[in-house]
């Protein structure tokens, strides 16, 4: 902003009286500040302190505060009791759990090897007839195929099925040793094969 009457204003200012602070004032302020800094009493008297008004709260306020404080104590006490019982229950559950686990846990399979002596059973005896290795057997099957008669074809299939079964039984005897039960099965099959063989021969 440009002052339009600058000269007049300058002259007015120059006419204003000048004041200087009394000598020693600044040193007194400085020393006062130093004293305050080291814990000296303030440079003004206590009489100059402002006095604030004091009010007494109504008694109902303190009663309410006391009741709330008492209630909190009860809750804390209850919480402590609950925590205590929870801990006890957890301990009991843990004990039961450990007991149940140890009683029911899968300890894995057990293995026992025993040895004893027993008398050998009497082996079944049978005559393998006709053997599939027998040339007459192959010749018979070939002959039946050539004949291709409905009345004989059924029996030929029957004989082939029985021969296949016989081979399965013989394989099992090789794999599991001469089990008497399997040998009995072989004897049964051989009897059936023999019967079919005879029926075929009589029907030819």
């Amino acid at each position, binding site marked *: 902003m440009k002052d339009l009457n600058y000269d007049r204003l300058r002259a007015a200012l120059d006419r204003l009286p000048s004041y200087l602070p009394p000598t020693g004032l600044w040193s007194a302020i400085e020393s006062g500040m130093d004293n305050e800094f080291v814990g000296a009493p303030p440079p003004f008297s206590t009489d100059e302190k402002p006095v604030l008004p004091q009010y007494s709260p109504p008694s109902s306020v303190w009663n309410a505060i006391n009741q709330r404080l008492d209630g909190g104590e009860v809750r804390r006490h209850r919480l402590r009791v609950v925590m205590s019982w929870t801990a006890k229950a957890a301990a009991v559950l843990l004990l039961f759990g450990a007991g149940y686990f140890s009683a029911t846990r899968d300890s894995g399979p057990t293995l026992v090897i025993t040895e004893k002596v027993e008398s050998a059973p009497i082996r079944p005896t049978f005559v393998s007839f006709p053997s599939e290795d027998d040339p007459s057997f192959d010749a018979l099957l070939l002959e039946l195929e050539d004949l291709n008669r409905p009345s004989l074809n059924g029996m030929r299939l029957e004989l082939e099925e029985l021969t296949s079964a016989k081979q399965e039984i013989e394989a099992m005897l090789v*794999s599991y040793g001469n089990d008497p039960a399997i040998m009995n099965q072989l004897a049964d099959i051989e009897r059936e094969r023999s019967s079919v063989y005879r029926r075929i021969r009589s029907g030819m």
Partner: protein
Amino acid sequence: MTAHLSKYIGLLLGLLFTAELLQAQSPATTSLQVVTKTINDTYPYRPGVEINVLGENAEIFVETSDAQQVIIRLEMISKHEDIITARKDLENLYFLIEEEGQKIYMQNKRKDTNLKPDSELSVNYYITVPEECPVYLKSHFGAANINNLRNRLRIDGEFSQININNVEGMLDIKTRFGDILGERIDGNVNINARRSDVELYDVGGSFTINSQFGELRIAPNASLRDLQISADQSDVYLFDPQGSPLSYNLTTTYGELVLPDEVPITELETSDGLRRVRIESGREISGEIKVSVTFGNLILEKQEQQIRRRRRF
């Protein structure tokens, strides 16, 4: 006197000779060393769990108990005159058990399938399950013995005798070269038997039986609802329960139909090689038996007394 003496001496010599021959022919009694490896294992049972057993030359016993557990005892047995050989051959057998999802699998195997043992090897399974536990058995040689099950039983047998006693529920049995002997069976039963005899006593419920090359002997009880038999090259024996609560539709093709004298029959068809008859029970509600036999005989007999099953094992 001399003649008498010489006669006695001759007789004595003859007796001695005969005794010698008999002794020579009788088999020498030998002893076998038996080595048994027994494995015990237990699994907790959860509803829905099924037992699967794959037995090879194994006798399988399935029993029930109230315990909610699957208890397994397996015996692997080796027999030989020499204990070392018996022990060595036993080492080639092993047992596999595996729990996968809702199934517990068991199987006995040979480590080296090319090894030819000198010993006799066999395996026994003793399995105890809750009665509601479903069971599946696959038995290749050996036998299966099942008692007291109440849920689902499936058996796939080859060269295996199957014995079933007091079983209810759904039964599905397939057998080849293995006879079936059943007693006190009730439920929905399906049997396919080839070259196997089937004997069922005191059975009720609903049965479907297909048989080829085997003999069937069926003695139903009064609670039988439905029995359908299709038999080929098989003889079928039916034992009518007391009071005749069942109706029959019987057909034979190229076979003989044998009926009791006092039974009133209705002839439905008689043609070349075929005969079909119906026998009514005389009751409003009755079980229905339908049998068709081809190249076999069909014999209907009265159950005049408790039929005793033939024990063959």
